[in-house]
């Protein structure tokens, strides 16, 4: 990634952290300490998964048959490729990095940008495992199904948007 962009994003994130920490301190030391502890624990819990995602996508990109990726979801695969990518996004497990790791792998091995955008959008909106394990137990089922049904066209809309503007 572009070095200056990396630096800018990192600086921005830490400015937000410091701002929030000051706000938390103003509300009391206990709140500040609890939030810092919770955040650090979250960080330590996600570390193994991130390691797996980053190192894993490198190895997977090496062994994945590149012509298969290009044929099914490459730049020339059109709307059928978008459909394939959307289905793949829906069946990808919903963890923090799995979808991005796979999307990065596909991008490195010749996937088309609109198809990868469809994949990332479908995975973000209706990864089946996330809907079943996280959303259905907490949110009323009627609302979940209406949301998922309304979201089904979005990967296609996003892919068509990318095709129309010719980016990224």
């Amino acid at each position, binding site marked *: 990634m572009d070095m200056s962009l990396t630096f800018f994003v990192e600086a921005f994130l830490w400015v937000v952290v410091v701002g929030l920490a000051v706000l938390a301190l103003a509300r009391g030391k206990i709140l500040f300490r609890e939030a810092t502890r919770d955040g650090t624990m979250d960080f330590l819990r996600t570390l193994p998964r991130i390691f797996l995602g980053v190192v894993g*996508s490198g190895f997977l990109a090496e062994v994945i048959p590149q012509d298969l990726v290009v044929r099914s979801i490459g730049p020339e695969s059109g709307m059928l490729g978008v459909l394939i990518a959307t289905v793949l996004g829906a069946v990808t497990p919903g963890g923090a990095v799995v979808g991005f790791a796979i999307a990065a792998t596909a991008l490195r091995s010749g996937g088309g940008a609109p198809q990868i955008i469809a994949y990332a959008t479908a995975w973000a909106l209706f990864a089946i495992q996330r809907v079943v394990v996280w959303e259905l137990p907490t949110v009323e089922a009627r609302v979940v199904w209406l949301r998922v049904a309304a979201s089904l066209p979005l990967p296609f809309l996003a892919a068509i948007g990318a095709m129309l503007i010719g980016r990224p």
Partner: protein
Amino acid sequence: MSTAVIGCLVIAAAVTVLIRQGAGKFTEVISHDFLMFLELLPKILAGCLIGAFVTMLLPREVVARWVGGESGVIGIIIAMLVGICLPGGPFAIYPVTAALVGLGADVGAITAFITAWSLLGFNRALVWELPFMGGDFVFWRVIISIPLPILVGLFARMLANAVASSGEVK
């Protein structure tokens, strides 16, 4: 569970690289990706801290009142803006959604909220997506996705009305 499956796949892929392409290629992949992993760490720590601070400073009832208080297109736009700003993983977002349902927010606002958080959430995009996908990809994906929470909110509301009226006919 899914972590274990991915772990097995990764080990299989690593072994395949080692056998097919040799130790040189294996070391090259692992050292490149390990550097990437190290570069990620401060960003992810910042993202986790932001999530924890916002959760402490903004109780879910407060967020739910903001999102659920307005109806119409304004309600959908407010829901979208809150979704963009709210950090945290699914374990943070779905309890807020449940609180929204409890406060009587409509399906359109709820759908716009989850969609905005999933597609446009700044914490998610900067901490998770950017390192993997690169700046160009994330920037254009986000630009393309800006209208989507509003569209899907309106669509979900239409669906809800259609389902409700078909229920009345029966």
